[in-house]
């Protein structure tokens, strides 16, 4: 059974059907791409999968469990984590604390333990620090752990966002335009990072992207959306040479 099973998902805003009849099935360990021209409804799909928007029709299930209609909080606890198109870090917090927020639910000490500094506090905080260190080292960010997140350069902020999402120990990672605003060198580095995350963490990744080089370079399968409808689905090479897709992107 596939890890993420989306069936006939659709949403309307008033009379506008933003996404219609969207179905996709993503196997565990896959690197899946979702592409399409501006306004095609890609980010809307992400919003539905994370519970921010409630789909008008259709369902989606993670690991066989139906998550349609759940709140963002519940969905996060069930194992879907995401990054944002416009980076949303906790800017006035340190790099380390950003990751520790992702790890928040991995330890259970309560408010009293924290205020009284009972042994549970020290034990759990040490575990958090170790886990955060391991994650930050993987992304080569440990040297900057005491920096405020807003003081990191752009490329590293993207990395930190991915590290923070991974800290929640998700089953599925959603990346919303990870290469937005990056130059070709940074994009190449990002491709390595994404591939590395998949292999190292045995992660399933669904990403939205505009950068065709990145998509065709790392995705094993892609879906093309246009005006809220699925235009094509399959291996990147086949899909990207599909005349319908070329028309949607470049015009006739």
């Amino acid at each position: 059974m596939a890890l993420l099973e989306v069936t006939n998902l659709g949403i309307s805003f008033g009379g506008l059907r933003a996404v219609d009849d969207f179905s996709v099935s993503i196997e565990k360990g896959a690197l899946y791409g979702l592409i399409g021209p501006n306004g095609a409804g890609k980010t809307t799909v992400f919003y539905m999968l994370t519970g921010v928007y409630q789909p008008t029709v259709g369902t989606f299930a993670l690991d066989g469990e139906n998550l349609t209609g759940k709140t963002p909080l519940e969905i996060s606890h069930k194992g879907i984590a995401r990054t944002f198109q416009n980076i949303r870090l906790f800017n006035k917090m340190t790099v380390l604390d950003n990751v520790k927020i992702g790890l928040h639910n991995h330890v259970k000490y309560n408010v009293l333990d924290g205020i009284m500094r009972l042994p549970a506090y020290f034990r759990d905080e040490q575990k958090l620090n170790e886990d955060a260190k391991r994650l930050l080292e993987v992304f080569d960010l440990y040297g900057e752990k005491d920096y405020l997140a807003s003081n990191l350069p752009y490329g590293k902020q993207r990395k930190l966002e991915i590290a923070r999402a991974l800290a929640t120990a998700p089953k599925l990672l959603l990346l919303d335009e990870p290469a937005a605003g990056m130059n070709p060198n940074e994009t190449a580095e990002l491709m390595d990072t994404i591939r590395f995350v998949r292999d190292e963490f045995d992660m399933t990744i669904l990403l939205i992207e505009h950068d065709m080089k990145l998509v065709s370079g790392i995705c094993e399968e892609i879906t093309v959306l246009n005006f809220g409808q699925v235009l094509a689905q399959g291996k990147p090479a086949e899909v990207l040479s599909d005349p319908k897709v070329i028309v949607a992107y470049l015009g006739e």
Partner: protein
Amino acid sequence: MSKVFTKKNILLFVVIAAIYALLFTLDGMGFFNRQTRALLVPICINIILAVSLNLIVGFLGELTLGHAGFMSVGAYTGCMFTIYADLPMAVEFPLAMLIGGVVAAVFGVIIGIPALRLRGDYLAIVTLAFGEIIRSILNNLSLVGGSGGLNGIPKYSNYAIAYVVMIVTIVVIANLVKSRHGRAICSIRDNVIASESMGIPVVYYKLLAFVVAAFFAGVAGVLYGHNLGILKPSTFDFNKSIEILVMVVMGGMGSIPGSIIAAFLITVLPELLRGLADYRMLIYAVVLIVMMLLNNNARFNEFKTHIFAKKARRQGAGLTEGGE
């Protein structure tokens, strides 16, 4: 447990004890005149108020104008308790503070609930209305003396008690902020959408911040009532809330040492300037404006971080340092 007895904590304890010993000896030597002596308890009370409000304004990032409301709820319940309960002071007064704090915390939940739906200016108006409603009710409630005030409160407060309660407040809030719960509260301030998608129960943590802050405001109210021996609803008006907010903003939002220093200055300054009579309020206003400008000055902030904390880039410039 060895982490409790670190060099830093021992030093902090020594500093706290030293300040207390200094106060005590100075007082014993008759160094304080009546006016100065009368300022000691209000300084502690204002520090409690400013540090607790900082939890909502500085760390949770929500603007509230109803802190005097929480204070008055705590003050009246605590003082009613000591008036009617017939217990020895050593039992009665701590109990009164606890009861005042808990009742204020209940009101913290009540006012925290709209805070889940409202943000920014809208929340500020709702909390402002809350404070005014409390004041109108107290004004018209003959049980607590109405606008004439609640008289005959035993004068239990002294600077020893106020100092201890102040230290407890600072330690509790500083520790809370540095725990995983405090981090969650700060993450809500920085980006609520990201916070929720990281699995932080935003509702719970917003309420937690309101409840803890209201509790300590209530405790401060109880101290206040037992210091003056009389409570008047007009004390807890809009201006009082603003005064506490000024302390928080002047000290720097999200900085506990800042709140402490600002609360101290704002309590002491009007008294220090009393000799200048006519120019007193003018100088007071100018000092406030200068402080605000300095707080927004990058170079001054750098200087401050340099002084307060070794970890120069950490947020809040080292939260427990200088916890005197």
